[in-house]
């Protein structure tokens, strides 16, 4: 097969339980090459769990997860790490590594044993830092950075892995509006270069603006899957999030717009 497979990641009837409670219940989903997939849902709906299943950290009790056609659990870890990168949310680093050292750890899957990083590795790392706007932080200690800066450094590390697919868990959580938009713009650029992206996010508007498809989860079940314009509607938001919002289509961007309403307006809308 000379052509790259169309579907990178395929989840089929995946169920995952923490103890007795199912965090994911019979979820089926495909990640298509070159798309940006948004994973949405209220708190506790299983978004992070799904991301962990997709990256192979968790193994479902039933159902299958395939990566590039073969079962995910069979793919050797180092091979997978060269193809898929994950940007987790938060996390502390106890030791005083420098930013450069952290980003260079993204090269670990490409290096063996005890080897030292070569010039090429350094160049890849620097390019990744440049794209995330963290190159001038290279010599700083990771402990000195703010939450947002650290998030971008972790993203640079993931980019240094030079993966085909990028999985992110709420990458905009610590970022202000400018940096959040910059980050998503970066994801768009990466998509244009051929990267496939799946990201968990909170912000319905950003999802509508940047994602090709969104998967909407509620209590571990996949409720809706499709383009944001179809999925994000007043009815679905009311069903899934159990709150009233004002949904509109934006004149400038053409994307769906979700406006939260205060109680006064929610009452009004009911009538």
């Amino acid at each position: 097969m000379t052509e790259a497979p169309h579907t990178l990641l395929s989840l089929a009837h995946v169920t995952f339980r923490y103890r007795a409670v199912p965090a994911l219940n019979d979820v089926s989903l495909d990640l298509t090459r070159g798309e940006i997939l948004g994973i949405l849902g209220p708190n506790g709906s299983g978004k992070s769990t799904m991301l962990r299943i997709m990256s192979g950290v968790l193994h479902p009790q039933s159902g299958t997860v395939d990566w590039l056609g073969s079962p995910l659990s069979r793919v050797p870890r180092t091979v997978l790490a060269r193809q898929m990168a994950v940007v987790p949310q938060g996390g502390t680093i106890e030791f005083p590594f420098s930013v450069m050292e952290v980003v260079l750890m993204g090269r670990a899957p490409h290096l063996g044993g005890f080897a030292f990083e070569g010039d090429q590795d350094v160049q890849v790392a620097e390019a990744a830092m440049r794209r995330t706007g963290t190159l001038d932080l290279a010599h700083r200690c990771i402990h000195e950075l703010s939450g947002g800066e650290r998030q971008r450094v972790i993203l640079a590390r993931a980019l240094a892995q030079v993966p085909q697919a990028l999985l992110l868990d709420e990458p905009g959580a610590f970022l202000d509006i400018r940096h959040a938009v910059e980050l998503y713009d970066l994801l768009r650029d990466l998509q244009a270069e051929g990267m496939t992206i799946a990201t968990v996010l909170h912000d319905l508007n950003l999802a509508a603006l940047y994602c090709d498809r969104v998967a909407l989860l509620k209590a571990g079940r996949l409720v809706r899957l499709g383009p944001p314009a179809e999925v994000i509607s007043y009815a679905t938001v009311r069903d899934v999030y159990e709150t009233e919002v004002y949904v509109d289509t934006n004149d400038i961007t053409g994307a769906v717009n979700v406006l939260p309403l205060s109680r006064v307006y929610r009452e009004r809308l009911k009538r």
Partner: protein
Amino acid sequence: MSFLTRRRFLAVNAFLAAGLLATVCAAALTGPVRIDLGRALQWSGPASPDSVILFDTRLPRVLLATVVGGALAVAGAALQGLLRNPLAEPHILGISGGAALGGIVAVILAGQHPLAAISAAPVGSFLGALGTTLLIYRLALIDGRLQPYTLLLTGVVVNAFAGALIMFVNSLADFYQAHGILFWLMGSLATQSYRLVAGIALYALAAALWLTWQARHMNVLALGEEAALQLGVDVDRTRRNIFMASSLLVGAVVSVSGMIGFVGLIVPHLLRLLVGADHRLLLPASFLAGGIFLVWADTFARTALGSTEIPVGVVTALCGAPFFIFLLKQAGRQAFD
């Protein structure tokens, strides 16, 4: 330099190795008894007291201090990486307590049969260390995985338990066993046997090299368990390997020299501040620097009071207190996030 290059690796290690060599030479010439180097180095004629002191009592002891210090420091650095806690120390996991208990029990049992070898102690203590390692490992497993936090807690509990058992055995057995317990609890590097030094050196070097080979994995482990998994590291296996290797290393060292604390805490921590957190450099550098530190501590222990010795564990502990104060001040200055 913000990351580790081959050049820096070689430079730092060469510097420390040179320092170690100088330390060994200086320590061999230092002691409560002044020796005449000329007389000591004379090959012909009967052995002068100077030569006996230099070659039969001082040199083996200094070499043993080098190996023990290096082993403790490397094990400390590895355990700090494993437990993701820069304040971890080899003795905190209770392996040394188990080793001491094993040694004490072995000596008491062997003591009933005067014909049993005096070397019952090292064998017994190594078995004690091995048993304790396995015990902690089994107790700390959750769902078949080794979590650092659980491991730390289990180790602390086992340590306390081993300590209690030691006191219990002590109270049951003859009061004079208490004398022997001093050796375990305060440590002693006194030896006249080059064979012992060679044996433990081989073991320690092999373990240190093996741990250094895992250094990259330890680096990545610092990013967090999930991140490490996603970067291709077999977290479970790496953790198990590091735990086993460092524990057995500590057990072997304790069986030979008793419990000498703080080396495994102070040396890696200081080095991390000086040469960075990258374990590929930290581990070998800790080995060398640990040797330097313990040789000086032991030289002080055997020289400071003239013909009377201070137990070396006391000297290292005395270094520990100001070090902790220094650590606290440092942590206070660091920004919290």
